[in-house]
């Protein structure tokens, strides 16, 4: 099972800040990147965090972002990237 996205797909991380244990870092919310790989499916850590079984499993994707998009004042070379592992429910097609 690889879920809704495949390597090369452009995705946007939803920009939302719900309370509770969330596994998508603040700095990457709202940014757009490209699926680098499908990492597999795992029990949802945002549910495991409260003692539940984390089922159904969620697909996890490694998403590649341009550093210059993530950090407006980024001073490194153009083309530098950052990879972030993000669960499917945080992603939308872009």
């Amino acid at each position, binding site marked *: 099972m690889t879920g809704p996205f495949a390597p090369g797909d452009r995705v946007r991380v939803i920009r939302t*800040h719900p309370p*509770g*244990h969330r596994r998508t*870092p*603040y*700095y990457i919310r709202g940014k757009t990147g490209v699926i680098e790989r499908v990492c597999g499916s795992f029990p949802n850590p945002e549910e*495991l*965090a409260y*003692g539940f079984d984390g089922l159904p499993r969620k697909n996890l994707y490694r998403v590649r972002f341009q550093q210059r998009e993530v*950090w407006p004042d980024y001073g490194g070379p153009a083309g530098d990237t950052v990879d972030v592992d993000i669960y499917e429910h945080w992603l939308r097609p872009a």
Partner: protein
Amino acid sequence: MAGKSEQGRGYHDIGGLHYGPIDPRVTEVNPWEKLSTAISNALGAGGRRIFVTDESRRAREQMGEPLYSELGYFERATECMRMVLIEKGYLTAEELESRMKEIEARMAEGRK
């Protein structure tokens, strides 16, 4: 710490904020820190499965400030284990505190 109070950003979620240089010195691990880690591993997913890492992480986000910033790495881990064990009914705060007093008294006795 600029931006730490941005709307919706948890106090633990510090990626991209300015916290100054990282101290690269390697520190000696204290015996209690090793013991705490061993107990945590024995109770965790690789042991008795009383709690999982995700619950312990969530407890870090729940303990609040300024406690979170004041505690060191192993202190946080130990406090989180305490929180989750109490939450799940494996022990009570009173039991833990009376046992700590007992041990403190015994150690004071031993030092005489």
